[in-house]
């Protein structure tokens, strides 16, 4: 195993982790501020990818597609919040799960009706095609750009929450919802904005990842469930926890898939080693989650109480 290959896989893990962070950040914000579990977050990821792919094909520009995907996901998020989610804040978690599960069915079939049953393809923009030399390895320029975008969004999100008036309201909403409403903040508007912000992040992740995977119905839910693992590990409601959890999950999952079959190959025959290694690698992050639950039941960075 060469150092170059190892470094490449490590970067893939970081890139995967940062895209998971975009998903997890929205989920954890929505939970932190509104106390809502949103299963349909994966559908917003899917909407971002589909609109981006369709718009990129129509306008011939990835960047216009990306903007369209982001805007569509944010708009869909705001619309969902105004029509459905708003009625769920006072309900128990079971009702939230069911209503957002119903939204998944509606949005998945809706996307299938609009875009047809076949996957769409979104190609990497010309500007970011090819590879760059990083010294120890050559690495895909597009994936490197994803890492850069992920970091930039994380910093932007931190600035938004730490430095702006909206951020103060979000943090206040996380610690005491009734109180900030009593202080005259328009809480309904704040909820819609936070939900749309989370939706935009999910849509962005979907559009960006859409260029390296196929864009298809059902693409959102596996990522959603991984984002759940991320926030269970990181501590629900915590942006910092989402970042740490996302990087842990991204790197451990990618490296596990890369290393475990090779480790087992040392004492099993190759075909068997591939099977055992792959099966175990697919379970690794859930075992990590179990470990965190045993040691820190409220996650690594508990945000509440």
């Amino acid at each position, binding site marked *: 195993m060469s150092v170059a290959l190892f470094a490449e896989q490590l970067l893939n893990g970081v890139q995967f982790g940062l895209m998971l962070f975009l998903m997890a950040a929205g989920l954890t914000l929505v939970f932190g501020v509104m106390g809502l579990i949103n299963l349909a977050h994966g559908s917003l990821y899917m909407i971002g990818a589909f609109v981006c792919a369709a718009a990129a094909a129509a306008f011939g520009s990835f960047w216009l597609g990306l903007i369209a995907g982001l805007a569509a996901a944010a708009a869909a998020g705001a619309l969902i919040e105004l029509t459905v989610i708003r009625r769920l804040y006072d309900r128990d978690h079971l009702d939230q799960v069911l209503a957002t599960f119903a939204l*998944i069915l509606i949005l998945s079939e809706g996307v299938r009706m609009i875009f047809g049953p076949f996957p769409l393809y979104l190609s990497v923009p010309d500007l970011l095609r090819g590879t760059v030399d990083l010294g120890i390895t050559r690495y895909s320029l597009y994936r490197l750009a994803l890492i850069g975008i992920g970091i930039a969004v994380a910093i932007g999100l931190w600035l938004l929450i730490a430095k702006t008036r909206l951020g103060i309201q979000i943090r206040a909403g996380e610690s005491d919802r009734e109180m900030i409403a009593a202080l005259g903040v328009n809480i309904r508007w704040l909820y819609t904005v936070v939900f749309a912000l989370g939706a935009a992040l999910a849509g962005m992740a979907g559009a960006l990842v859409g260029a390296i995977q196929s864009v298809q119905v059902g693409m959102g839910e596996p990522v959603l469930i991984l984002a759940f693992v991320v926030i269970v590990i990181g501590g629900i409601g915590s942006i910092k926890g989402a970042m740490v959890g996302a990087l842990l999950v991204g790197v451990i999952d990618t490296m596990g898939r890369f290393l475990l079959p090779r480790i087992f190959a040392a004492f099993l025959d190759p075909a068997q080693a591939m099977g055992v290694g792959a099966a175990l690698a697919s379970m690794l992050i859930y075992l990590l989650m179990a470990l965190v639950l045993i040691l820190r039941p409220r996650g690594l960075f508990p945000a509440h109480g």
Partner: protein
Amino acid sequence: MAEMRREWIVNAVLAMALLIVPLVALWINEPFYVTLATRVAILALAGVGLNLALGLGGMVSFGHAAYFGLGGYVAGIMAHHAFTGLPMWIGVTGSNQMLWIWLWAALLSGFLALIIGALSLRTSGIFFIMITLAFAQMIFYFTLSWPAYGGEDGLPIFVRNQFPGLNTMRPWDMFILSYGVLMLALVFFAMLRAARFGAALMAIRQNPDRAAAVGISPFGVKLAAFVLSGMITGLAGAMMADLTRFVSPAMIAWQMSGELIVIIILGGVGRLFGPVAGAAILVAFEVIFGGITEHWQFFLGLILLGVVLFARGGLIGLLAGRARHG
């Protein structure tokens, strides 16, 4: 009291309807509807399992497909070894006897529920939902990437497993077997709910602190209920595998977990016959709307959304009045 009597009438009508529909189907020579009724009975059985955890115990498990799928794989793997004659582990051969398979399906599902429950019950609320979902996804990916038993292609059961005195390849025999097991499970559920254990479980759901104050250990009681719940759902999985004569990772997919919750909600949470009503609605919806449009799930989503937002209590709540459940 009037409402309780009304619920018993609704229950009796449901139990009779589930028996009469396949009888009529058999009479007019439409075995397809017999198999459909068998599907309803088995899905309802899986729902009875989840209803124990979710309805009585208030544990919103979004991962019950794991037990359903494990039960299915137990049936599939044991039948596979019985068919090929290859030993499973050192010396142990497979089996095509349903009773023996069910025992293992229930035991192994219970064991999995014990591990997942012990970890997940350290948390509650929204954490619990996400963790049960994540562990089910772990089992899903494991079966997907484990090549020995078909991986993502699944595992066929060439000949349905056998039950003493019945010819399980005949649709009616398979139906009456599933129906019998469902009725036994419902009796078990009713007895459990009426027993001290059920009272303790419901007390914990309503107020864990108060239950703890009178000397009930919330963790122990909930874990026991969770294990029983997993066992019943696992048993249903083994029967579903025999009905479809096929197991695949799709049985463990998150959609299946969602479907099981939907069955309980459509029927009525915590109601004895809630899963029966819910499974019947879901299967009927799938057959009727699935025949009209390929986008039937879109309409299922709309109806589900309507039920959650505006008509809580499900079908039994609608027919027999609101439950004391709350």
